[in-house]
Each structure stands twice: as structure tokens, then as C-alpha cells.
């Protein structure tokens, strides 16, 4: 079959591909041109091409900044804890939803679980303030009216950490179940029936059928998550964080925002961005390699 015939027959598929492809070219590959800013003394008015090359000077400057290490540590710490707390949450939820037999209740729970995903972080920040505030937060109002000491959920760094993680679970766990639920539909129902006849209880079935069935999905998601270990969303730490807990809440993305957009030092901000990308790549490749060795599952 000549390629012209082939293309004629399948051109719709290519048309469909065009949009995502355009997305990657415009938003992922195009901006790579800007990476050179990290090696230049970027001048607003000369543009990227007109700015002078400075080699690795900016890298030296960034690696000498205390805030860089603080924010790097916090990024890794928050992401790692998130992985421990937020990663298993959708998995457990998905299995629970899957085991649920009452259809209307299942649908209702799913809807309620999905809602937080669609609320903007700015709004969540406002809600968090109202609920967890020390002086006038809802929870502390109850605690103090019962005669106990108020808990500084937002202003003590360790309490804040718990708040941060739980808010994350609340926001993302429901939405995260979708991918697992999709994978669960791929498991052959007969396996469950056979296991039931053989006398396997619910937990046994989950352990021997559901979880192995989900293994490839779990591994892929884990690898993707590890790849994001050094990159962290901007909104969540920025909105929930505050000056009293900056020791924990200041992360690479807020650091980049501060030195890049607020102080106009684009060169330094680009250095940090590039650093994140390189370390992220190392993490993905490392996780993929390990996973292939251990479980034969991987993403490439």
C-alpha cells in the first residue's frame, strides 16, 4: 500500500493527532528556545538573542543561595510526603467504590468526591483559612468552646504540614480514582466469580485479583509521580502557605515566582527551572529502570 493510499484512508486519524501535536510543539518544544536564558545575562529590552552569554555564572549564583536549598528541601519533602499520603488515597478509594454494590449511592459518592478537583486553589485557600484559622477558624471555634487550647493548624509548621497534606488528599483523591476505575473495568469478571466459588472472601479477592490487575497502572502512575518529585505546583503551597510557616511552605515554584516574576531576574529563575527539568528527567529514568528490574513494568 503506497503512503498516499494509506494517508487517504487514515487521514482522519492524523487530523485528530494534529491538535495534541500542535500543543506539544507550541507549549513544550517551542519554549525550549528560552532555555538559553539560563546561560545569558538576560536583558529585557535586548531580548533573548541580544543578551550576552555568561556561561555558568548564573548557576553558581543560584547554587550559592540559601533559599535555593531551603526551597529544594521543602519541595522534595512535600512531594515525598504527598507520595506517601496522597498516592495511596485514590487507589483505596477506587477499590472501595468498585466494591460498592448500590449503584445510586456509588454515583452520588463519586460526584461528591470529584467536586473538590474543580474548585480553584484560590478558593480552597479561602476555605482553608475559614476552617483552620487559629483565632476564628471553624474547627478551632469548636475546640476552644469545649475548653481546649486552639491548635495552630496554619501557623505552626508541623501542624501546617498535616493541614497541607490532608487538603491535598481532599482536593485530588476523588479525581485520582478515575484512572483506577478505568483500569478496574479491564479486569475479567470471571476471575472474581471463580474466586468466589473457590471460597475467597472480599479481602482475598482484592488482594489476589484487584491489586494485581491494577499493578501496571500503579507502576506507571508512580513513575510519573517520581518524575515530578522536584517540580511542584505553584498554587497549593502559595495559597495555603504563609509567612509563619515559610520554613516549610517556600518551595521551588514560589521561589521562581519571587525571583523571576516579582524581582525580574529571569536568568536566575530559568536556571532553577532547568535544574528542575534535569533532575526530573533523572528521577523518571531512574524509577523506570528500577521498576523494570523489579516488576517488568515500565513506561518505555
Amino acid at each position, binding site marked *: 500500500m503506497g503512503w498516499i493510499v494509506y494517508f487517504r484512508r487514515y487521514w482522519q486519524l492524523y*487530523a485528530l493527532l*494534529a491538535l495534541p501535536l500542535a500543543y506539544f510543539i507550541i507549549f513544550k518544544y517551542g519554549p525550549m528556545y528560552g532555555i538559553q536564558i539560563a546561560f545569558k545575562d538576560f536583558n529585557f*529590552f535586548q531580548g533573548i538573542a541580544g543578551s550576552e552569554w555568561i556561561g555558568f555564572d548564573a548557576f553558581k549564583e543560584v547554587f550559592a543561595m540559601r*533559599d535555593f536549598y531551603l526551597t529544594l528541601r521543602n519541595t522534595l519533602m512535600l512531594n515525598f510526603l504527598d507520595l506517601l499520603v496522597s498516592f495511596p488515597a485514590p487507589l483505596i478509594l477506587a477499590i472501595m467504590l468498585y466494591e460498592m454494590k448500590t449503584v445510586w449511592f456509588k454515583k452520588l459518592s463519586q460526584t461528591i468526591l470529584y467536586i473538590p478537583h474543580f474548585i480553584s486553589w484560590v478558593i480552597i485557600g479561602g476555605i482553608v483559612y475559614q476552617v483552620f484559622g*487559629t483565632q476564628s477558624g471553624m474547627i478551632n471555634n469548636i475546640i476552644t468552646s469545649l475548653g481546649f487550647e486552639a491548635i495552630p493548624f496554619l*501557623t505552626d509548621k508541623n501542624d501546617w504540614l498535616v493541614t497541607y497534606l490532608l487538603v491535598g488528599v481532599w482536593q485530588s483523591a476523588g479525581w485520582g480514582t478515575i484512572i483506577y476505575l478505568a483500569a478496574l473495568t479491564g479486569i475479567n469478571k470471571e476471575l472474581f466469580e471463580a474466586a468466589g466459588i473457590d471460597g475467597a472472601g472480599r479481602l482475598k479477592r482484592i488482594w489476589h485479583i484487584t491489586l494485581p490487575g491494577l499493578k501496571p497502572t500503579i507502576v506507571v502512575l508512580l513513575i510519573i509521580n517520581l518524575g515530578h518529585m522536584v517540580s511542584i505546583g505553584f498554587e497549593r503551597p502559595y495559597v495555603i502557605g504563609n509567612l509563619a510557616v515559610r520554613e516549610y511552605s517556600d518551595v521551588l515554584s514560589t521561589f521562581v515566582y519571587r525571583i523571576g516574576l516579582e524581582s525580574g531576574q529571569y536568568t536566575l529563575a530559568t536556571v532553577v527551572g532547568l535544574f528542575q527539568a534535569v533532575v526530573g528527567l533523572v528521577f523518571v529514568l531512574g524509577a523506570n529502570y528500577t521498576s523494570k528490574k523489579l516488576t517488568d513494568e515500565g513506561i518505555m
Partner: protein
Amino acid sequence: MIGNKQRKGIMGTKKAALTAGLACTLLFTACSANSGAGEEASGGSGGEGAKEHVTLKVEVFDRGNSPAGSTITDNYLTKYVQENFGKPNNIDVEYVPVPRSEEVEKLNVLMASGSNVPDIVFTYDPNTFNRYAKQGGLTDVGPLLDEHAPNLKAFLGEEVLGYGKFEGTQFAIPAKRSNVGKYASFIRQDWLDKLGLPVPQTTDELYETLKAFKEKDPGETGGQVIPLGMTIASAQYEPLIWSFIKPVSEEERHTLTQQLGSNDYPTLLPGFKDALQFMNKLYNEGLISKDFGLDKDKKKLGEDVATGKVGFYSEDDINPFYEKGSLDTLQQNVPGAQLASVDVYTNEEGKHAKPMYAPNGMYIMIPKSSERAVEAVKYLEWMATSDNLFHLQNGIEGENYTMVDDIPVAVENPSEEALNRMFNSGDMAIVSNGKQLGSMEKNLKARALQMPKKFLEQVEAAQVIANADVIEPVLMDRPIEAQTKYGTTLLDKFNEMIVKTTMAKPDQFDGIYETMLKDYMASGGQAILDERTAVYKEMQAAN
């Protein structure tokens, strides 16, 4: 039947694919059509009419408060400008909105984009101005002002213009402030009366008063009383902190002050630690809100004042007295509530020392890439000429204001139309911050008269307080580069230092203060100190 259904299914996918493809094409053509139209418009405007017809692009702050029927780029005042300045000069004035809350970030993006940058841009942040000037991105407006703007130069005066110089060159046109007073403090007079207490005159007396507020809860808040309203915004903490700063020599004043953004900060001045210690005491005794460190935008404070929980606080001088502002709402919530303007914080010398504004407002700049620099200067000149500024600031006589003793007084209960006319007045009259009527006295009077009549007495008192015992901003002979570079980071650290030391347990205060100060110095504070010391030496040598 089944075959038919299948056939339909395939048709369905085909159609879907087609639609997707079509959507793609449309998207791309839309984009290219758009850019084509843009080119045409800018190309067309050049060759139209006998006299050259040009477009002047002017930045405007968007506060998201446009009334129905107008937008920030199309409203009564923009039409007024077009009619009175644009038409006679063959200029189309086009406004480019920038959100007020992220003016610096957005401006940075605009400037870096090169082609889309407006011909007139501005910022309140001197560091941003210095950065642009240093990178060579601004037009030298000195010669243009000499040639085209005699009225503007006379209006601004030498002192104000001096703030727009970068290493001797006039790279910005600073706006002129009509009033340099900044802060006053406010106390619940009805609480004092109820407890039979006098108005506190010193910081020590204030402390006793706050304790009485806490213990006796005269507002009957049910234990929710916040004796001292505090936030992590400068209007609340600056009056307190600066009153602890000890008298210093000229040299110390120049070298130890740290200018971060547009304000001077006393991080290294003697007395700063005492101020933090005092705040720490207030916090640990429950006299300020436990969550003050979360309140960056004063929202929570405003709420607490309006619901009658706060006994005393500092604020921008006339801020509480606006129509539907804090006091107005408070009096609705708590009948009989009174807020008195007071001057309490006292320094070692018994003065109520507090910061003031520099005589300039924002920095108005013309990017170097602009081809309309002359028109831009003409626009500003027009604004400063005859009664144009007056009209922009006051609206229409009889509908918006009436003249009383040479002072425009806001019409009581103006019509909706008249009110909407002026919603963006402050952001359109860019050459001035506040109303200009020829003298400070008149300016202040006019400012007071535009406030609700029922609060006039307190407004006038607040303005007097704001201008009493003020600390002048420190002027250096040349811009401090380290401030430009580290300003934003250090401002964050400064605020963090206040929050952490205030919230520390009393026995941990010293340790936390030392750690934070060390971090501050290492993150740029030392660099600023060194540079300021060097520049001060130069200044001494030059004299």
C-alpha cells in the same frame, strides 16, 4: 437494520473527525486572520488623512470595578481624553489594562514582549524603574520635557522630577503627590467611655488600655475581642515599629536604613529589636490576633473592625471613613460605635514618629522601543495644562461637585451616572496622586470634603496626625543596586521576621531573632548595607 446502524456509527466517527479537523483549521485561520487584521490596522492608521493619524497606547490600572455599561478601556473619562486631547492632535488614545494587584509582574511581561508594550507605562516600584533604566529600556525624557512640556515641568517641580532621574538622566516622569501623610491610629471611643478611660497618649498607656479592653471586653464580643488589630501589611505594623526606632546620626540614617520596594525599612536601625519584643509581648498576652501573620491584604482586619471586635489599630489615614467603609459598616453592626483618630505610639523623645510618603507618586516611563514618545509627553503635558487635570479628577460641576471656597466639594447623593463617571478617575489622572488644588492646605481640605460628611471631624484629625512628626524617606545620590536585586526577597524575609519573632515563646525570642537576622543579612541585607555605606562615603566626599 444492524448493518444500517453500523454504517451510521462509521459515519458518526467520520463526522466527528471532520468536525475536529475543521475546528483545527478554523482555529488556525482565526489566529492568522487576527494578526492580519492587527497589521492592517496599524498600517492603515499611518497613512490616513492629511495630517498623520497615530495611536498612542497608555497603560491603565484595572481594579475590576468598572460599573455596568463601561469598561476600563472605554468609559466616560477615556472618551473625554479622546475628545479633548486625541481628536485635536490626530491621536487615537488606546488604553492597555494591567491588573492593579500584579502590576509589576504584568509590566515585566509587557516590557519583555517588546512589540506590544504601551507607549506610556508606570509603576510604584522604584526597583522596577531602576532595573528598566539600567538595562537601557527607557527613553530619556529630559529633552522631550524641555521641548514639549513646560506646564508639566512647572506642575511637577524640580524636587519631584529629581526622583525620576537615574544616574543623572531623566528616565521617568514621577507623578506628584498631593499629600505626603501616611498613617493614623484609631481607637473605639465608645469602649473608652464605657470603661471611663482617657484616650491613651503614649505607648505605655496604650498597653494598659489594651489590657483593659482584653479583660473587661467592653464590646461584649464574648471573648473574641482583639484589643490591637494587627496584620502583616505595612499600615498596621509600620507606625508601631518606627516609634521604637532610636534617634540616629545622619550617617546611620543613610547607611542602616534598607529601602525595599518603595518604603524604607528599619531592620538594622537601633530599636528595631525592641519593637519586635513589644509585639512579642502583645502577642503572648493575647492582645493581637493569633492569625495576624496570615492577613496580608488586611481583609480579616477590615472584617474584625467592622464586626466590632477590634479596639485599636493603625491604618492609612482616612481609610476607615469611606462611604460603606469600616466605620460605616461598624456603625450599622454595632449601634453607637465610635472610632476616634488618635496619635499614640511614642518614641524615646516623646514624638509620635511615623513614616511619610516621598513627594513623588508612581514612575511614569516611556519605553525606548516606543515610536510615540513625543505624543506620550504631549499627553502628559495636556493633562497638566489649564483645567484638564481638574476635570479628570472632579468630573462635571453641579453633577459631581460644587465649588465652595475655591474647593470642589463632592455632591451629596450624586446620581448613579455621575458616580460611575469617576470610578477610574484616580487611575486616569496619572500625573498626580490625589487631588491637586495648588496648595497642601487646599489639597487636604478637598480630600477631607470628599469623604462622608458625618465623619468629617475624624477625617480632618486623621490627616493632621498623618502629617505630624513624620520621618522623611532617605534619599541616596544614586540607586542602590543591591536593593533592586534583593528587595523583593528581603521584604518577604522582613515580614517573616516580624511574624516569627512576634509569635515566638518569650524565652525563644532572642534565638529566633538572631537566626532570622542572620538569614536576612546573608540573603542580601549585608550587600545593601555595604553598598549604602560606600555610596554614603561618596556623598560625603562630594560635599
